């Protein structure tokens, strides 16, 4: 095995923009699930809406800040539409509605009726909407290399995107850190434990659940922007499997913790890259072809998720006594 080739790729995943985007999406999901106990099975829907909102607004000529606001507004409206009918009901209804709604967003996005707006199933090409973000960079164009890591400074999968992406992730961590310690976070945790008890103490449970759904969804939408900045908006790459990756990351790192989603995302992408590259080196192509190795990687994700929920539901950072999932 050629470690000098494998290691840089694996280590590169530690701070890749995609890792940051998934960490951020998992932070949003952590507000839903870890703090409030909401089963949002459609986080990819929030991400896709954020990506569409940002890309379409930028293509329409809107400045960077306005395009980001469009993404946030889209996620807010989506959360309200999902929450108004379901948050008064018991938790499982939200899970059903969110998984369906995320699929609706994807299917509407890829329908040919909207080709002018969303590019239908072929999506929106990255260089149609990347320029406002790249122009906002204070750095000169070119390439920087730090050790084995060499990326463009500003273009596409760039240092600039890594700096902004991880800064946003850290800001979101700070937000969660502040909220988790606040009386607001305490009410959410109470709702996670038993919403009738919280209701009997005079708190408007519905309003808190809605705030949580909107906040986590908006963070998911920003994650969607980060996710599409180094690539294209592809509705089919932001479907159910994306939601389950985000769940795996959250449960791996530890729900209801501040840094769990970040740690989970780093481990998830680094290990996945390691497994795929190593298998390509080690396993002869007569046994498993390259695309089969790709699939095998995802099988490992599924098995990991199952093992996590069975054997370590609190994740890596979670408090054993404060399990994120257990029988109520």
């Amino acid at each position, binding site marked *: 095995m050629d470690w000098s080739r494998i290691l840089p790729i694996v280590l590169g995943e530690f701070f890749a923009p995609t890792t940051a985007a998934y960490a951020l999406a998992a932070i949003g999901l952590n507000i839903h699930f870890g703090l409030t106990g909401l089963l949002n099975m459609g986080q990819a829907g929030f991400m896709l809406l954020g990506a569409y909102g940002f890309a379409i607004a930028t293509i329409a000529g809107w400045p960077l800040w306005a395009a980001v606001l469009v993404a946030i507004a889209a996620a807010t409206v989506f959360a309200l539409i999902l929450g108004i009918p379901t948050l008064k009901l018991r938790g499982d209804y939200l899970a059903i509605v969110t998984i369906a709604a995320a699929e609706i967003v994807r299917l509407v996005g890829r329908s040919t009726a909207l080709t002018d707006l969303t590019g239908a199933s072929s999506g929106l090409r990255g260089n149609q909407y990347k320029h406002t973000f790249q122009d906002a960079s204070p750095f000169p164009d070119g390439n920087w290399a730090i050790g084995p890591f060499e990326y463009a400074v500003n273009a596409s999968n760039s240092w600039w995107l890594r700096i902004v992406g991880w800064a946003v992730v850290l800001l979101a961590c700070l*937000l969660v850190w*502040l*909220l988790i310690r*606040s*009386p*607001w*976070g*305490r*009410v959410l*945790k*109470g709702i*996670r*434990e*038993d919403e*009738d*008890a*919280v*209701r*009997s*103490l*005079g*708190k*408007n*449970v519905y309003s808190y659940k809605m*705030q949580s759904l909107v*906040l986590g969804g908006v963070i998911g939408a920003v994650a969607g922007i980060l996710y599409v900045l180094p690539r294209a908006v592809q509705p089919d790459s932001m479907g159910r499997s994306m939601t389950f990756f985000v769940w795996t990351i959250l449960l791996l790192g530890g729900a209801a913790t501040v840094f769990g989603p970040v740690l989970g995302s780093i481990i998830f992408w680094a290990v996945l890259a390691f497994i795929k590259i190593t298998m390509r080196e080690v396993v002869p192509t007569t046994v498993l072809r390259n695309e089969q190795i790709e699939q095998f990687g995802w099988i490992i994700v599924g098995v990991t998720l199952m093992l996590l929920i069975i054997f370590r539901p609190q994740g890596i950072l979670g408090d054993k*006594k*404060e*399990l994120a999932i257990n029988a109520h």
Partner: protein
Amino acid sequence: MPTEPSAAVPPVATPSTAARDAAVAALRDVPHEPGARKPDPILVADDVRRHFGGVNAVDVDHVEIQRGAITALIGPNGAGKTTLFNLLTGFDKPNSGRWTFDGKSLGGVPAARVARAGMVRTFQLTKALNRMTVIENMRLGATQQPGENLFAALVAPLWRGREQEITAQAEELLTRFKLDTKRDDFAGSLSGGQRKLLEMARALMAKPRMIMLDEPMAGVNPALTQSLLGHIQALRDDGTTVLFVEHDMHMVRHISDWVIVMTEGRIVAEGPPESVMQNPAVIDAYLGAHHDTDLGDDALLDDAVLEQLRAEDEEGSR
């Protein structure tokens, strides 16, 4: 199950406090009949009905709860006591009915607003928030915490002062309920009885004017029963109105100032605890359905014991 409950539960000396004397005096002239008018009612309900399919779970024409007194709501299983609780506290919606709390109409008002109006309840199946610490449970019960607003939550100076007040209040209550040593334990690690105490203490954080306890003694060991009884009486002595559902007649007799008896959704009798148990409607309600009714987790209510209690009563009144 102790064969001699009187050995496990030492007889409670009926306390005589100014509050109890005042409550008893105020209720002296109230007629012993269902729906009786009280001199100073805090809660007045009319025509409260709730059907489940064809069953009238609650069918109450009129009921008043006296302010500053301990009122017990008793009745066999399935009498509709808990359903009435749920309706009055906004946890269930009636098919019809209206009621006022402290002169304010609360019919159809959601549970959270009922609690904010000053009427706080506890649950039959204790709802301690297991994966939160005892002190966090307590803090959650407090009102007027500006930090419970999402935006204010981000600016700690806006709520830290109130948080300190809340914590001081919580610690005082925990000491009173002898839970102060459990302050930083997860509520899930407490015993059943301690959880009942915690739930009651948490409800008191909001400083309610009326507290509604749904079977406060269920699942509580006899050693804790004494202190729970004391706490409930202390509430009344502090001016809080108490309404509680209970199966344990021992407790009902010793601490309540007034008893309301329900059966099959209707109120069938009212009166002071000394005499209401002799009301023929009550004896019918209990003993008529006794063979298939669980009257509580205590041997106190088997026929022999009830007979004995009644004999004691007759002796006492002689």
